[in-house]
């Protein structure tokens, strides 16, 4: 598959796709197949990624950049190629793409480095929909440097409240929003937010952790200034993520972490630093995981996500409908009830049944759901609940997975409700 160039999509079929994931081929317990509906927490690893990682570790493993022997050259080439692959997936230049330990690390990097350029009294706007990864670093920054935190509210449907936005951006220097909520599934109209932010003199950081696994992202079209992704959600190994930043911004930002690779020259008293992206990649980079992320981006670029997303919207409808039928008034959706501008994920509560108990009971049928606050406590608090149960789909999921989930919900109702 060509890098960056036009990619040949495989004809979309959940069954063919399922066959590409080793973990899905094995029963989770004797006679119990796996219905993995926890893709929002971690994407499973397709064989193509596993093979890329194994090949790297067994044929090309070395430290990068610093040595000139054959293995080091192979490793350096692999690392550079991975950066190109990820950049192509986001339609950006590899020069502006920083590899990080994950999405959380990418946001912390911006909060520390770009944040150090903000001044006391400046404001940062954060939506209540955010994952803790896109909230706690800003709280810590605000406390460290005397900044104001502005709350961008969500609607009752769990979408960013666009009507409230214009009145809230005064004095705001940075807007931190998610491309898609990991709880409500709502997709944010990022281009509109970024345009308003820009007009108000703010830069926009977009958390693409949940969006990126559903197809290539045209980052320039969003008009944002920073975009971050999480490797493991795309099926890459843990320990890798990426930050794209607008070139002028990255160039003006001081380094965050210190160590090897990010320097130009070190004297005892002080050092000078390399250009981006190396300036922000201190220490031995996560080479193998990066190779895995490159392969994951190529893998995803080869999926016909348009077709997949139509299929997944239908499954989302089937799931919501099935929950309504079985739970009646006890059901509460934590997120929109319709299928427009949303990810194929559904969070809900069932009155009288605790999310963890539901998840545990569904596990008996091999159905993997997630219960809790999903690292979005503020959002759950706005809904007046401590946690919810979430089913989150990937392109390999099929109606059988949804039906197993619904059957499990029937078990849970039977066991847990009086």
């Amino acid at each position: 598959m060509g890098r960056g160039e036009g990619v040949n999509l495989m004809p979309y079929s959940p069954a063919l796709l399922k066959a590409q994931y080793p973990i899905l081929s094995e029963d989770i317990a004797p006679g119990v197949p796996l219905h993995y509906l926890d893709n929002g927490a971690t994407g499973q690893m397709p064989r193509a990624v596993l093979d890329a990682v194994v090949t790297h570790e067994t044929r090309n493993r070395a430290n990068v950049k610093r040595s000139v022997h054959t293995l080091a050259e192979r490793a350096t080439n692999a690392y550079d190629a991975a950066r190109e692959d990820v950049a192509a997936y986001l339609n950006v230049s590899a020069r502006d793409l920083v590899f990080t330990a994950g999405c959380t690390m990418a946001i912390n990097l911006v909060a520390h480095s770009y944040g150090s350029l903000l001044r006391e009294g400046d404001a940062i706007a954060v939506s209540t929909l955010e994952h803790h990864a896109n909230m706690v670093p800003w709280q810590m920054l605000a406390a460290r440097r005397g900044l104001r935190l502005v709350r961008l509210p969500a609607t009752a449907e769990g979408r960013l409240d666009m009507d409230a936005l214009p009145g809230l951006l005064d004095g705001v220097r940075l807007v931190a929003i998610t491309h898609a909520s990991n709880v409500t599934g709502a997709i944010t109209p990022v281009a509109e937010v970024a345009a308003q932010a820009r007009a108000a003199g703010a830069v926009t950081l977009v958390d693409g952790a949940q969006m990126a696994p559903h197809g290539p992202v045209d980052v320039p079209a969003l008009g944002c200034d920073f975009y971050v992704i999480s490797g493991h959600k795309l099926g890459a190994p843990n320990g890798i993520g990426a930050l794209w930043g607008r070139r002028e911004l990255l160039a003006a930002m001081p380094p965050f972490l210190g160590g090897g690779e990010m320097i130009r020259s070190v004297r005892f008293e002080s050092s000078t630093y390399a250009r981006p992206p190396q300036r922000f990649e201190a220490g031995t980079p996560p080479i193998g995981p990066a190779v895995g992320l490159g392969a994951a981006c190529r893998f995803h670029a080869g999926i016909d996500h348009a077709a997949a997303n139509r299929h997944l919207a239908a499954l989302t409808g089937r799931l919501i409908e099935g929950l309504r039928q079985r739970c009646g008034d006890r059901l509460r959706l934590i997120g929109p009830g319709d299928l427009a501008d949303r990810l194929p994920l559904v969070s809900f509560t069932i009155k009288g049944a605790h999310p963890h108990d539901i998840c545990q009971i569904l596990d008996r049928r091999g159905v993997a759901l997630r219960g809790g606050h999903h690292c979005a406590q503020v959002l759950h608090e706005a809904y007046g609940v401590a946690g919810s149960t979430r089913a989150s789909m990937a392109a390999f999921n099929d109606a059988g997975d949804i039906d197993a989930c619904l059957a499990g919900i029937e078990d849970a109702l039977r066991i847990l409700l009086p």
Partner: protein
Amino acid sequence: MTDDLYPRDMLRAASDVSRQGELPAPDGTAALDNPFCGDRVEYDVTLDEGHKIRAVRHRVHACVLCQASASLLSAMAEGLDAETIAATAEDLLAALKTGEAPLLPGHPGFDVFTSVTKHRARFACVLLPFETLEAAARDAGNKSA
């Protein structure tokens, strides 16, 4: 439907309301969250002169395991002090790891948790009430000191 992780006795304990609610004049209170799910347990206590628990009430927003654990703990709390509660929690944790009944000698009610042994992630659900009650007892101790 019978269920090994949710035996009828556990569901019964979870729905036991006899020590739910608030104490009118608690000597100490504590509220703790389970950071992984946002579940919350709150305890009110009064102590006797020997820093031992005289009365307790709990409020639980949590799963069945945590609810059952709180009910069972409240039922045995009278006469315990903070140290004993902490030590009992350690014993229970060790017993949860093996899953061998009796989990807490002298308190057969807790054997509803034997099958939790396979589900490490849920140990915290069972232990959160102990942590919270211990904190409430310490809170009362601090106030009286």
